[in-house]
């Protein structure tokens, strides 16, 4: 499982288009987190995809008019079930929030 970061202009429906590119391929969405980042928004997704799916989904994301950037994080989330992944991200987000505070 890898983490994907899609930076986008938060226009009507853009987040749904990003999610639909995943869901139409019946790929599970165990973790999704979207937040504002400066003038843009970033949605982070943890997804289990093979190489071909990754290529296709990333290309679909880039083809969305208001998507600015797509990146895949170096770190691979090793957890195999959704709850672990979610916990992992919540912890990370909490840690970041704590650090900012």
């Amino acid at each position: 499982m890898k983490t994907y970061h899609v930076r986008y202009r938060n226009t009507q429906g853009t987040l749904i288009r990003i999610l639909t590119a995943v869901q139409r391929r019946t790929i599970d969405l165990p973790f999704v987190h979207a937040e504002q980042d400066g003038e843009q928004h970033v949605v982070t997704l943890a997804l289990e995809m093979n190489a071909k799916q990754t290529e296709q989904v990333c290309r679909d994301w880039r083809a969305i008019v208001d998507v600015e950037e797509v990146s895949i994080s170096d770190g691979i989330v090793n957890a195999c079930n959704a709850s672990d992944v979610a916990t992992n991200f919540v912890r990370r987000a909490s840690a970041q929030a704590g650090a900012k505070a």
Partner: protein
Amino acid sequence: MPKGSDIVLSCLRAEGVEVVFGYPGGAVIPLYDALKDSGIRHVLSRHEQGAVFAAEGYSRVTGKVGVAFATSGPGATNLITGIANAKLDSVPLVCITGQVRNTLIGSDAFQEVDVLGITLSLTKWSRLVRNVEEIPAVIAEGFYWARSGRPGPVVIDIPGDIFRTQSEFSGPVKFTPKRASSCCAKDSGLFLRLVDLLNNANKPVALIGGGAKASGAIAPLRSLLDTLQVPTCATIHGLGAVDFAKDYYLGMVGMHGTRQANLATHDTDLLLVFGARLDDRVTGEPSRFAPDAKIVHFDIDPAQLDRVRGCELAVLGDLANTIPAFHLALESAKLPEWSEWLSLVTHADRATPDSGNSEPTVKFLDELYKRLPENSIVVTDVGQQQMWAAQRYRSANPRGFVTSGGLGSMGFGLPSAVGAQIAKPDSTVLCISGDGGFQMNIQELATIRRLNLPVKLVIIDNKYLGMVRQWQQLFYNRNYAETDLSDNPDFVEVAKAYRIPAQRIGLDAIAGSSISRETADLFTNFLQSSEPELLVFDCHPEANVFPMVPAGASLSEMLTEDQ
């Protein structure tokens, strides 16, 4: 002070819109009220699906953005099939839908549906307008995205109260994207690698898709193909991009492609794909498509690259730019001779075998085609007649063959022919439908009559849902479940009820090695009439379209009539 509806129409005019297709309803009454002084022609369809298909027909023969209006709720949902059709066939389309007034949105009001939500996966871009001030920017951006890059459908949903709201208006605006809609391959090394691939290829094939036409790259493409002299085939949307008279042209590829095109594509070791997305109707079983080939894929849409088959080289960009760049790179290259390969794949007649039950239908189409004036437009519905019409198509008019290729929407032909005829009033528009598809938008006969559009309507009447019946015959032991349409109405009488002249001809009229003078005159008069007219051809009920690549088979595993 102008109202929102005036601003909408003013912005449409600024985008070059001359004609819109639509159907009024409660939420768009203010928009229709403003039409009379707008300078924009409105074509009234008799169903919103008819309007959106007409807008697509208009767009496909002109290259301009097609525009459709519909009211909220059912008006908008009736557009859905047309929007999906435009998405899969890359047609620039802007649909403007009325919405319930702002204060009612989300209340399940009368004729309220979430149009934006419903159409998100079908549109390239969409907006629900929230106030009158943003109308100019939304329309400018919508048209920009509909046209730019890989063209596609856009939905702009406008609440009824915004149409009625007065506002200061300083004129239409231009939209400038924050990022380019598409990038163009500028890497000269890319083309050197491509030349290198060509130099090492023994059996190259070029495959032309609709993208070549959408990009306006026909002239540079034809010039490139003349230089390459490699066997060339086209998808159904690529028909007309290559002159059929060229020795290297093999015809249509795919499920019902010509034997030569399919075999060459299967055997090639280097496939140059220009603006085709390689869907399964083209590839057969994707994993067995061109199994020995390296693929070089020219496309403007990065989402299409590697979608079906991995490619050796991707040339991303507008074909109007990348094809000349490639051609330029060839100037200093000395390419191998492929005349032996060309001769091998073109030695046989390129036409589809004309044996069996389909022969009279094929002959009927040939007789019509050879009487069509140059630059005529052939519009088809979906099914067997579509494939026969495509197989026999010989014109080099790049925008002369209009069909629903990606979505395969029955009912497309008749309304789309309306749009094509309005766009090209001086061209002959021949609409070929089956008896099933014709009835899916039969109400548009009223539009044709009202506007006296001289569309030439043909029904290939086999009294079956023919293509499905063919599959049932070949793969389901002739269990013709719910495909028998023998209780069809009398189409001649139906047409006459719409005050459209109509006649029926039988198989006997086309029998023999040559048609009678009487039949020849009938065809000529039919095509030359200044009135709309319907010709119903009684097709053999069990006529089949061959060759046929069965589902899951490779292009080399075609079924033919004699099997």
